[in-house]
């Protein structure tokens, strides 16, 4: 059973109009990573918030403190009321199911529309650690998300840059210009996260140097062993390859590079 973390609420406030931040103190349990996300929501006193919550651990003094971030636009009216009234009491949550490590001397952050909430904790933690940081907004970010990101990044004294044209070449150009040991963090939808990973690996970044939080539905794929065609992974365990027409059995053998499961030729 996953360890439950109990925190004492210290204060809460609205951040950049669209987000809510709660400062809390860890009373029981522990966080293994400094930055993470609880996708299932949290319990504030006797109420439940089902919206995903991102968090950053701030070790100050005797007890560890954390900051929790919630996107108010994803909350129901009831949840917004709960948050507004959460000035004291306790928070209960499971350990984050998505985590980000802060190892490394330099970090490149790629942030998309859907990843601003997830990026806040990492931006704060990196600012506090004093390492080098470059923050890039993904192409075609919505105005509200971009403004919120710009404001937050400005508070941390980081420049916010955009990816010229948003294309793969621009991303590659940024990644190629870095020194050895630079770490990449992506907070965006899965397709952009995959794109960044592919480009980074092609250039020579290792898996350990690329991390992030993908948002939304991840398109799981099957690799046809015969013709190498990629296709959507259904719930069924067998499919017909859409390119070569061969029946395939979908295995559990997974390629992180291709982000796909092996579909073996079925001769039965």
């Amino acid at each position: 059973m996953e360890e439950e973390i109990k925190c004492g609420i210290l204060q809460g406030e609205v951040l950049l109009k669209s987000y809510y931040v709660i400062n809390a103190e860890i009373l029981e349990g522990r966080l293994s990573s400094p930055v993470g996300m609880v996708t299932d929501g949290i319990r504030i006193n006797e109420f439940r918030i089902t919206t995903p919550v991102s968090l950053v651990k701030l070790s100050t003094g005797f007890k560890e403190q954390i900051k929790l971030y919630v996107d108010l636009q994803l909350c129901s009216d009831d949840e917004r009321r709960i948050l507004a009234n959460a000035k004291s009491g306790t928070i209960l949550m499971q350990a984050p199911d998505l985590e980000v490590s802060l190892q490394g001397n330099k970090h490149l952050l790629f942030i998309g529309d859907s990843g601003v909430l997830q990026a806040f904790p990492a931006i704060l933690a990196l600012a506090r650690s004093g390492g080098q940081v470059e923050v890039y907004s993904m192409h075609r970010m919505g105005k509200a998300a971009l403004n919120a990101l710009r404001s937050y990044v400005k508070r941390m004294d980081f420049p916010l840059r955009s990816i010229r044209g948003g294309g793969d070449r621009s991303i590659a150009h940024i990644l190629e210009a870095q020194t050895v040991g630079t770490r990449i963090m992506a907070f965006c939808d899965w397709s952009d996260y995959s794109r960044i990973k592919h480009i980074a690996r092609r250039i020579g970044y290792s898996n350990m140097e690329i991390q992030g939080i993908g948002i939304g539905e991840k398109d799981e794929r099957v690799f046809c062993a015969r013709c190498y065609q990629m296709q959507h992974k259904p719930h069924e365990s067998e499919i017909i390859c859409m390119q070569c027409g061969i029946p395939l059995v979908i295995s559990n053998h997974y390629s992180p590079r291709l982000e796909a499961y092996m579909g073996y030729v079925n001769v039965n």
Partner: protein
Amino acid sequence: MDKAALHRMEIKAAPLLERFPFPFQADSYRYSNNSRALVPPVCTDLTPEYFEEIGGKRKLLERYPERTFQAFPHTVEAQWEIMAMLMNELAAVHSDYFKLDKQGVQWTFYNRLLDEKSTFVFGDLSTLPYEPLDFIGRHVQEDLIYLQQRDGDLYMDAGQLCFPANWSLAFDLGMTYLQFHSPVPIYSDSGLAEKVRGFLLRMEAGKPWTRLNWTLNVGPRLDTSPEAFGEWGVGRFGLNLENVGEIMHLRAEDQRLFQIPGSNGVLFSIHTHLLPFDQLINNKTWADRFCKVLEDLPDPIAEYKGFLSYKPLLIEYLKQHI
């Protein structure tokens, strides 16, 4: 007699049964770190099948380049190092058949068996017709896989693979040691894979290791890639006691592991040998041992190796001939 025929005779032509690397040391088989020090420390082994296998390899490389050769750009230095190692070895150990002349960075490699001569500038890709690993792989019977050591792990970053035992280089490229072994039952989930990875990470230059792996083959086909399963996978239907001796083969992989010091990686070579059952039974000790191994083999291993459904047939055949 033409030159090629003459050369064919020159490789020691002991009968297959005498030179086949029988993979079982006991009457029972389980996954283990069954590596031993490689003595002498030689990667390449020439057998009378050389011409057939090199010809087969080169056809596959031309016809299915994406399937048979993959390499990340950052492995070029390692590939040069491996190519140099193997060329030096071939010229030293198999000096009747290979020669290597070095004039500074200008090298000339002679393959007398195939009557081929290649001159190139060492370190200059533009002077070779293929990437270095791909080039030297076309002169040796072994499949060559390069594992790059990085972040405390081993990554399959390059390889030339023409005769796989049902695994795909195109799919597995870039995987860590544990990831590309994940389909192997028991080995991958018992902690053994982690132990062996630790062993490989501690390997020293100049102290290679070797181990034997095995599976069964329906037919004499070396290319048992998942890409071609539609061609070779159907062979298991229609097996019976009358034909199993001729059709079924014991497939042994002579694997050799060399630390590549300049690039901090491991060269993993695989030389595949096939022995038909109807020849294997001529060695009664082997037949008896192999029968016992099959009887004792856990079902998940037999399933993974693809012969669970007809294992009883194989045992029956062997028992008839012990």
